[in-house]
């Protein structure tokens, strides 16, 4: 059990890296990289929400199997569930950890509602992962998000140099950086996720 969990976590980090090989949630990584101070809690929050959405995905896939007519409405239902989860979490934070919530205010909503969280049930269905595997995968994705944001924040520090051509300063160089980095992940046969 733990081996599968660990194996799928490593898989999420390397071959099936959602961010670089799937191109999912890159704007969130960029936002986290621009705020190095709260990067750790941002990644923690995001992996928590990913975990919850993974388990919700399992429940959803069992309740509404693929062949049933309601399958068409499944994404909308799941979006509603994620919204409800976000509201609950926001209420919880405002009640108990008001100070920390004040600090995390700008990133809280974007860590709860983003493409990574919404993609979880789909990944679970397409790659036919069992309960433990999707848990490992969700944790791995959280870790992948944290490493991507950490690497990007250090890279952006280095990309602010004067003798870079004017046109590439700022965002375009970050795009090229991530392009080459996701090419590097190709070595793990992680070319294309979906």
């Amino acid at each position, binding site marked *: 059990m733990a081996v599968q969990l660990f194996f799928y976590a490593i898989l999420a980090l*390397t*071959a099936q890296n959602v961010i670089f090989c799937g191109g999912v949630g890159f704007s969130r990584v960029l936002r986290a990289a621009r705020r190095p101070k709260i990067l750790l809690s941002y990644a923690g929050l995001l992996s928590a929400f990913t975990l919850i959405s993974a388990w919700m995905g399992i429940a959803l896939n069992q309740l509404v199997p693929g062949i049933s007519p309601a399958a068409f409405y499944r994404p909308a239902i799941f979006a509603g569930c994620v919204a409800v989860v976000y509201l609950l979490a926001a209420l919880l934070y405002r009640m108990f950890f008001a100070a920390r919530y004040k600090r995390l205010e700008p990133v809280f909503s974007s860590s709860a509602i983003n493409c990574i969280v919404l993609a979880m049930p789909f990944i679970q269905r397409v790659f036919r992962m069992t309960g433990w595997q999707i848990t490992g995968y969700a944790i791995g994705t959280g870790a992948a998000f944290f490493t991507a944001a*950490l*690497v990007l924040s*250090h*890279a952006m*520090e*280095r*990309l602010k*140099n*004067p*003798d*870079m*051509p004017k046109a*590439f300063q700022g965002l*375009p*160089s970050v795009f*090229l*950086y991530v*392009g*080459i*980095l996701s*090419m*590097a*992940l*190709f*070595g*793990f*046969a992680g*070319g294309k996720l979906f």
Partner: protein
Amino acid sequence: MQQLMIQKPPFLRSGQTVSTMMKDMLLALALLLPLPTVHYGTHVLWVAAASVASCFISEIAACMIAKRQVDISELSSVVTGLIIAMLMPPLAPLWLPVLAGAFAVLAARVPFGFTGNNPFNPAAAGVAFVTVFWPQRVFSFSEPSAASVLKEGLKPNQIPSEMLWGTDGGAIGTTAVLVVAACAVYLIVKKTVSWRITVCFLAAAGLMALLFPRIMVTPLTSLKYELLSGSLLFCSVFLITDPVTSPRTHVGKALYGAVAGVLIMLMRRYGAFEQAACFAVLLMNAVSPVIDSFVIAVTARREARRNEQQ
């Protein structure tokens, strides 16, 4: 690059400047050319010339567009061209190194600021780009190379000592193991390359080969096969030790080399291609600033603690 008169001390500078370091690298790379030319014919020289020409011309074009002063004395684009040529197959079509060189300079070097600021090793980025899209062409060696046989989990038919002379299949510069070792010693003695990265890289790769052999042989022969096959040795001397993209602190360099060794062995075992050197180098270049700031944070904390004791 500007030429200035020295106004402030020190008035004596060490003879080693960036251009002498680049000249040493060029000399070491040029030493790698004769053996494959003898073995495979003059097509190898054409591949090298095409790669260097494409890097140089795209560098000049980029300088023209960015309206920067083109400085010839700093030869880093020529070195990138030669490293790319060394990783090409001996009978490669000429457009392959040209495309790799163009991508290396135009995508990995120029947009990030020219010499000192490229986050990725341009040669590794160029070769990786070409490997991703034309794998059959990049790995089209005359006889199947030891790395591809190892990938399938079989024992290569050459015995390790035979592989020293660089007569078996493989990229241009990577098969002549003895010449690469000689270049390594030359560069380390001339202090162009820091020995810490190379030694830790080979130690970590060797350890991984000893502990987790890919083929059913005694660990020692597995070690010999892994180290002598593919472009691992060439990468340990030329690709991974590029000072711009490797960490600055000494401890950081050692850590960087070790993690790179482990990564390259993992990529060889689970990766998509037989030669994973370029991909491992690119991944490690992304992680190198993180290693650096980790080492600096540790020294800062230790220094703060020492200040309290006084």
